[in-house]
């Protein structure tokens, strides 16, 4: 997850000060990823240093405001358009399974069962979150959750497939 680009996206929408960026980020991700104030200000310093954002001054409460520059907008577009490669094969559980097979680990079935339990918990959590997004009519977040649920469904099918 790129904090840098999410801050650029928030500043593309409107000028904001540091605290507004923190709350804006949390709203964007529905509180799913924590972001501390330190991370926000460190990232803003770097963005300002790289001329991707600039400050037009302070607001009435003397809080430093930030706006996105043209270079910042171009950086944001470039990032949005760049495809994301996924190394699904390098999954931690795949690797565990590989090692367990290599050493003919006796408890392989319980290992698979525990993994499935963990995934089912994730499904429950995401299903509940999905319901909340439906009720608040957050279509984008609903689509993301749907994507995650489809991945989990496929993972569970695979676990059933490898279980003896």
């Amino acid at each position, binding site marked *: 997850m790129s904090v840098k680009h999410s801050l650029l996206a928030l500043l593309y929408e409107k000028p904001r000060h540091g605290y507004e960026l923190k709350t804006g980020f949390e709203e964007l991700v529905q509180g799913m990823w924590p972001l501390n104030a330190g991370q926000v200000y460190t990232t803003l310093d770097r963005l300002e240093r790289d001329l991707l954002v600039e400050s037009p001054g302070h607001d009435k409460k003397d809080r430093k405001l930030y706006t996105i520059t043209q270079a910042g907008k171009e950086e944001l577009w470039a990032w949005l358009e760049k495809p994301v490669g996924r190394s699904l094969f390098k999954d931690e559980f795949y690797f565990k399974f590989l090692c367990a097979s290599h050493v003919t680990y006796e408890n392989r079935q319980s290992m698979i*069962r525990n993994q*499935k*339990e*963990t995934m*089912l*918990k994730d*499904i*429950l*959590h*995401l*299903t*509940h979150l*999905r*319901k909340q997004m*439906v*009720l608040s009519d957050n279509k984008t977040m609903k689509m993301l959750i*749907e994507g995650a*649920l*489809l991945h989990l*469904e496929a993972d569970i099918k695979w676990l059933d497939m490898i279980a003896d």
Partner: protein
Amino acid sequence: MINVVDLKKEYKTGKEVVPILKGVDLTIEEGEFVCIIGPSGSGKTTLLHLLGGLDTPTTGTISLDGSELTSKTEKQRTIIRRREIGFVFQNYQLLPTLTVYENIIFPLHADGKKASPKDVQMLLEAVDLVGYEKRFPHELSGGQQQRVAIARALIHKPNLLLADEPTGNLDRQRSSDILDLLAKFHYERKQTIVMVTHDMFAAGYADRIILFKDGVIEAEVKREDDDYAKFLARFMA
């Protein structure tokens, strides 16, 4: 509120008596969304049918809002069912010779009442079937048929919605659409929903999950309980 006390149901096959429900005690609060899970043959659907007055118990009582359903005559139960309860079934159970519109208004029609065009329109919009009013069930996909069934179950504004595997015949996307609809109606109308399901994705929508096994309640868990996910995961795994 639904109050079930020591509910038992047996079926006779020849000389053999097969107990399906072996003493169920259960309270469901008004506006609660309850999900019943459990292996096939554990008595889930039987309980749902008894709650809806479609069948009568061998012994035990069911009260709906303080009124004892189990002491009513069949005619009285039919009236209660038509006015207070909505049903959604796995196989939709639409009437094949009636159009979408006619199927939706059927519960009111059966009760000698007229449907408000505004209410029908609102439901058609909610289930995303505007423009399909004159079609027949065989002209619709499974997901569309289930959406008609949900509209039909809600047209008479029941206090209680009983759903038996409502997503059982649908693919994941269609299932999600149906669950979203139930969640929306539950949120907006504060109806009590009791849903039987095998589907993990459906169970996650409920406030409380009841696990049935061998005709009794084996365990139950509320969403706010810490071990909610663990409980379900253990069962579903």
